């Protein structure tokens, strides 16, 4: 199990995956918005999305959990 974490503080702009979905390593799963810029966050490993932890519109800090992948 791996947790995809936020690389920087910002707002969750888009969640690109759904629970149960298969993702590949390097695939963008969340887009953050920070300082008016879109920051794509990718899964480091392939797997199944077990849980979406953050919600669109949430403010998150650096290293906050976004998505759990199994």
């Amino acid at each position: 199990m791996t947790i995809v974490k936020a690389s920087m503080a910002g707002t969750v702009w888009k969640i690109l995956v759904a629970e149960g979905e298969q993702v590949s390593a390097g695939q963008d799963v969340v887009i953050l918005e920070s300082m008016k810029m879109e920051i794509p966050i990718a899964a480091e490993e392939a797997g199944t999305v077990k849980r979406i932890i953050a919600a669109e519109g949430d403010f998150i800090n650096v290293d906050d959990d976004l998505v759990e992948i199994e």
Partner: protein
Amino acid sequence: MFKKVLIANRGEIARRIIRTCKRLDIETVAIYSEADANSLHVKEATESFCIGKPPVAQSYLNVEAILDVAKQTGADAVHPGYGLLSENTAFAKRVEEAGLTFIGPNSDVIQAMGSKLEARKTMQQAGVPIVQGVNEPIADTDEAAKIAEEIGYPVMLKASAGGGGIGMQLVNNEEELRKAFEGNQKRAQSFFGDGTMFIEKFIAEPHHVEVQVLADIHGNVVPVFERECSIQRRNQKVVEEAPSPFISEETRNKMLDAAVEAAKHIGYTNAGTIEFLVDRDQNFYFLEMNTRLQVEHPVTEEITGLDLVEQQLKVANGEKLAFSREDIQKKGHAIEVRIYAEHPVTFFPSPGKITKLVLPEGEGIRHEVAVETGSDVTPFYDPMIGKLVVFGATREEACARLANALQNYIVEGIQTNIPMLLDTVTHEQFLSGITTTKFVEEYYLPKATVIGK
């Protein structure tokens, strides 16, 4: 003159406006979000009011809250700065309806220039050259592909409501266009609430040159020379200078004439900027009009001796411009660099606390900064934390002073683009004065990867 001006903005531009107001004995009202409670503009204004939570939608874009503060404090005018509500027609209208003066053009003029597509048509009517392209919105990818084929690749895909490079993309062929169209349309819809797209022919080796105008309500329009803003990253300006080292005196005069025609045609008042693309043969084409004070206005001030904020206040107060085109002479050369809180190679933002800030001092150096040692750079707003402006008798002197100043500009605790700026302003291509909007991709990035962290 106004007694009290509310500044509907934050950061360095709010401080800049406060400075001129103080000199003219005008009281100022600052507004701020919870994230900006310790900001310098809050301390420097005569009065300051917190109007909401950090996200701009809940504070700096909250029209009701801003108008409430204006009413409560008895402000008689509102200065919108740049960005945020500065080109928002509804806001300008609400300010006008509240019986206050909006320091900018009338709301109908803002609206007319707010749509890039409408502005294209209007400028064509005014006799200002525009880039070959379409004057009607494009419905979908198939229609876009058909139009792009007619115009001929490469083309620029653009969002009519776009700004800051959002919704805009260069596409070289049909495959790229098909990939890019919907994404940009959606992004424009999500950022601006308007997904209207259009296509223009791509101008090779483009220079971005813009003309500053001042216009009073008595029909006088005075052009205040041009600024060259070709050095950009992510379609946003990074280095700006005046005068342009690229255009000839003949082109300059033609561009200034066109800017005056454009402003007169739409009944423009206050300070405004007409942006042009200039090709390698010095043909120029209307790009868009910014109906507000520009970030890079200081370089114009440095070569003309004018205070553009003072001129804005006077014009908004109904005064006649005290000078004509012939009265305004340019002297020397000025360059501005924008200091961004971002990685110098990837350009990803770098929010955090500034643990140390030391600004270089010296002849010809001017600072417009929003932060000090101990300031938090939050993820809620634009990454620009300040601007460094240098003046020299010649471009060579300005470049030398700028490089020296950048070497002594210390920001610790966050990453900044200072290494990128230093590479840029010492690059032989930049020193030659021939800079195009492709500079960062063609000259900076290939070398810069070596210093990338």
